[in-house]
């Protein structure tokens, strides 16, 4: 399945894995937003050059 799409069953499973035990009606209420959000996630995951690394850094010398 393309990451750009999502169906109610998949959304319900994802919500459950996150600890949100929602009713089918509650899942349906989230569904339109999930479709828009999927497109955002797809955009964020467009390929990046390797030089975009490192993604995260930290300083060993914390003040």
């Amino acid at each position, binding site marked *: 399945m393309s990451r750009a799409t999502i169906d109610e069953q998949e959304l319900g499973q994802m919500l459950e*894995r996150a600890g949100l035990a*929602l009713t089918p009606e509650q899942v349906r209420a989230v569904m*339109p*937003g999930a479709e828009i*959000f999927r497109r955002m996630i797809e955009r964020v995951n467009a390929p990046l050059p390797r030089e975009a690394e490192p993604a995260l850094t930290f300083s060993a010398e914390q003040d």
Partner: protein
Amino acid sequence: MAEILTIAQAARLLDGRKLSPVELANSHLERIRRLDPQLHAFLLVTEERALTDAKAAEARQMAGARRGPLDGIPIAHKDIYNTAGIRTTAHSRLLEHNVPTRDAYTVAKWADAGTVMLGKLATHEFAFGGPSFDVPWPPARNPWNTDHFTAGSSSGTGAAVAAGLVLGGTGSDTGGSIRGPAALCGIAGIKPTYGLASRSGILPLAFSLDHPGPMAWTAEDCALLLQAMVGHDTEDPASVDRPVADFTAGLGHGVKGLRIGVVRHFFETDHPASAATRAGIDAALDFFRKEGAEVREVALSPAADYHAVGYLLMVTEAFTLHAPWMRDRFMDYGELFRDRVALAATVSGPDIIQATRRRRLLCAEMTAAMADLDILVSASQQGEAPRIDSVPKWANMEKPSFTMPFNVTGFPAISICTGFGEGGLPVAMQLAGKPFTEPTLFRAAHAYETAMPWRKRRPALVG
């Protein structure tokens, strides 16, 4: 009804003992009693506290010991700012009876400056997700037309300042929550550089994107308010430890010599703004050119790229904070908050890493674009405020935001009014700068505001 003063005007009168802090507080309390039943800007009016503050300010005034321009100035705080002994709800059922024991750092700073606190202002639930009609208090209404939206989440502050209920107030901005209501309510609001104003004691939405900041009728007033808001706070790990600039230093110096870039694709192709919004920006650019600024176009990544990164991180950070309540008390949240934050369940670990990588690239892109520029101009909002009963549930996701790019990068940005649209409601533009160049933003915004007629017009309901 007496004329509504700006903070700068009131400060001059207070300095000259031509205005009493107690009389000023009482006039604002009277205006709140008269107008707030239509506006719902306040969640709580703290009249007793206001009069205590005002009497103390008056005593200092009479002793020749005013603490500065904010001494005796009526303000209020967005209801995510902790106020010791005073209910702080985040406009949510979950904190309906929450009474903090300490002031937020910024609340204490304004109190030390002598401000007179009139109360707590409406927000969208936990600064995200309005307008909601299923939370314990109604959403704030736009003073220019109470059938219309204020934008959010600093909705009460936008409405209260525009209607003259307060002279200034606090806001917070995670994706545009200061600049949005500033734009739709026709006032000024600045999101300072990330780390300039402390977040400690403010209920968070998303740590890496949250910015506290002031809202007021003019850019000059925002400069005065921000001056008293900033400073290094060891309780906020993002708080910068550097000398604080004089935010009023550039006021009155015009824009001659400033280098201004216009991100035209943001508001012409990425998310086309209304004709009035575009006309307002074009007129402002003409003004800047005429006054000696250099203006040229700049291209950045599509606004949707910034929006996607910011929204993904915002929702995920918010879920991280709210997970225990989201799991146990899901239905105690309003629908808009709970359904938007639930989207975090669809984000994977690699998605977050990719968003973080892309954020770094976008920061680098904006830094490079501004290397030889002082200011970036774009829209603040698409157009005039929509009707409050016709804001789609997913409105803040469907189109890319003009404000989110500066939350993603942390660069400072101010929204100021550029006139009025066909519906008679305000339109606005956004000026952004390099990190810690707030004085330049205030300089340009003040030059524009003082040359234009927009600051002379108040909502009709004010009377």
